[in-house]
């Protein structure tokens, strides 16, 4: 692995995009895996070598000493006791899943069970407590854990909570009512002049609010003597927060639910939108207060498609975390 010192001490190739990054905040260093690359060995940004030296050998074995000693290129042996590194990966993977798991009815990616995710997360976290940046991370995490349905997982979490003197609450009944597409519906009426569909940029909306694969659809319609743009998106497993869309300079509040279960909104537009060059005839969906609307960076759509394919491959896969493996 390459070791670079041009921008702090960095080991390996740091993941290029937030949505592919499984990250762990350790004492004196941050570890990161690119979920699409599938490497067991993470990249690291070391910001406090003295603190990191205590545990970096758990991640890189004997190469840790070379990394901290100024080597520019190191080899991490395949053989060794990597149980701590694997537990680190599980923690990071589940943090990734909580943020970026692309639940989508249209793409066939089932939503994760949030209660199971937190339970599995805190169990893995307890195995790496000694190298975490936050010495109280396990207690903090136990504070938002509930007893999962899985009996084995539940008993292990209960034992851990007991060791830390924390009372667990039973899990609330899962509310998935919003995560279904209706069979039919109506349209807003009027004469459709122009239609299109744009990928929803995940970084602009909180996890689970929007179906990760379904595009935002828009239509410029003549209705009641005015020109309006209708925008609709398909909600994800955890809808509810405020959503809006930008079409050119026009702001559209997405506050209605149509007969298909889609989240929709309309706003008047000047007829001149029809003269916009095609690349600007796009809708940017975002959550006000969460992000500001910007056009997606090139390649975002392809990246999202790759993550959706990756997530599909995790369901049922023996190498995935329990939470991903048993998603349905």
């Amino acid at each position, binding site marked *: 692995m390459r070791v670079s010192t041009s921008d702090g001490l960095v080991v390996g190739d740091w993941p290029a995009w937030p949505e592919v990054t499984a990250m762990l905040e350790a004492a004196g260093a941050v570890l990161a895996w690119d979920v699409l690359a599938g490497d067991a060995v993470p990249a690291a940004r070391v910001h406090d070598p003295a603190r990191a030296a205590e545990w970096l050998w758990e991640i890189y074995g004997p190469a840790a000493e070379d990394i901290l000693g100024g080597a520019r290129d190191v080899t991490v042996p395949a053989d060794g006791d990597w149980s701590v590194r694997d537990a680190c990966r599980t923690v990071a993977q589940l943090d990734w899943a909580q943020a970026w798991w692309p639940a989508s009815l249209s793409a066939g990616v089932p939503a994760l069970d949030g209660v199971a995710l937190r339970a599995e997360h805190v169990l893995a976290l307890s*195995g790496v407590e*000694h190298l975490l940046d936050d010495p109280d991370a396990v207690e903090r995490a136990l504070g938002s854990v509930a007893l999962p349905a899985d009996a084995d997982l539940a008993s292990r979490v209960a034992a851990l909570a*007991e060791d*830390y003197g924390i009372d667990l609450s039973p899990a609330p009944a899962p509310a998935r009512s919003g995560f279904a597409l209706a069979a039919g519906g109506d349209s807003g009426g009027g004469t459709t002049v122009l239609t299109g569909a744009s990928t929803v940029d995940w970084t602009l909306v909180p996890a689970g609010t929007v179906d990760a694969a379904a595009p935002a659809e828009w239509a410029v319609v003549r209705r009641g003597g005015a020109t309006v743009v209708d925008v609709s998106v398909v909600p994800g497993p955890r809808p509810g927060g405020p959503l809006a869309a930008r079409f050119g300079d026009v702001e559209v509040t997405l506050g209605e639910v149509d007969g298909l279960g889609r989240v929709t909104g309309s706003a008047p537009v000047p007829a001149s939108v029809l003269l916009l060059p095609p690349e600007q005839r796009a809708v940017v969906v975002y959550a006000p*207060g969460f992000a500001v609307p910007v056009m997606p960076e090139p390649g975002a759509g392809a990246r999202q498609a790759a993550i959706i394919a990756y997530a599909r491959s995790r369901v049922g896969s023996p190498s995935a975390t329990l939470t991903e493996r048993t998603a349905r």
Partner: protein
Amino acid sequence: MSTATATLPRGLVIARAWAGLGDAVAPLSNATGRPLTRTVKLILDPLVLRPVLHPEFAAGAVAVEHVDALRDRITGAGPVLAATASWFLVFKKERRRLRVTEGNPQDLYFQRCFELATEHGMPGQDAARTAAAVLAEVHAQEGPTVAGLREFVSDEATAYELTRLIEATWAATRRSPAPVPAPTAEFLATCAAAPDQALLHALVAAAAGSAGAADHDRPGVAHAHGLTDRDRPSRPALGARASKTNLPKPFDRSIVERLFTPLTNAFLRAGLADVPSLVRQEIDRSAGSWQLADEVSRVVMVLGREASAGLTGDPPTGDAQARLRSRWEREAYVHRVLRMPSSALHADVRGVREAYVRRLWVRLHGRELRGDTTAADQVWDVLDGVLRSVILDQRDRLRSLLEREAGS
């Protein structure tokens, strides 16, 4: 390992020695078989390795010539550690049987288990009875409690007397005429990597902490630090009750509110004085510089104020400022990776330093109540830990906000 550096990470040496102890110490180990963080902090460090007596075993790198000695020390303590682990299981069982839920069992029982293991070896036939007796002692309702505090101040005559005491103590307070800038830069330059006890001593001896608070009664100064909502700090009320949420800013808290949080934590409560002494000490403390009692705490307040001055805005000056700045800037990246609101950090930029100073005050106040002294090598842990805790609380707040919205 190469011989060029001739050291090994202490974590590695401990992990290997620990692995040699096998399943007997599993109750003191985590899921990956390493000693629990609290096993190191509460048992191995203070009771087995004792770096105060054996500086060669202190955290950090261990010179290769001391590696065998460190390993032998842990291996030699194997039987007592195994017995400690067995005692801990007995304690957990008794705790469950007695339906005790208060406090963190590791915090509360680890050192007691080690004492019992040293004295009796493995738990014997009457182990359950012994454990129950220790549990009763640890969780005794005596000592200061929130209920005891409420009862104490609810007596009319006592409340009257204490209110007069607050007035008299505050009336007698004299502050130094003008703030003197403290020479903190030298200590802050090295406190993270190579803390210098002599430099800290010098700051304490020069009363640099008190001097740094001399302008607090000028309008707006304490307000700007985020320590009060008032124009200038005023005499606290005695108070009657408190709740954990919606506590006012530190200088605006009543005497009862100041004592409330420390009394709700079983582990912290254990080392506290009785309620009447606590209340009288707190009244005294409230009239001091920074409303703290020990000069070293006041010095750390000044150090924290200086170190947190570089969180935003102009480039940081000095090592401590640079390290805190780097933690704060890392957070913007963490927010993107964890898919948290991108705008929240910008809104909080001004608030972060105030939140920092407030949290630092609460932490130092707690240390004073427990009688913990702050040595030079603990200062950075406090200064850095406070920022971490401000940041993590902010994350928790944002998360629950998003969840509430998703549930609406």
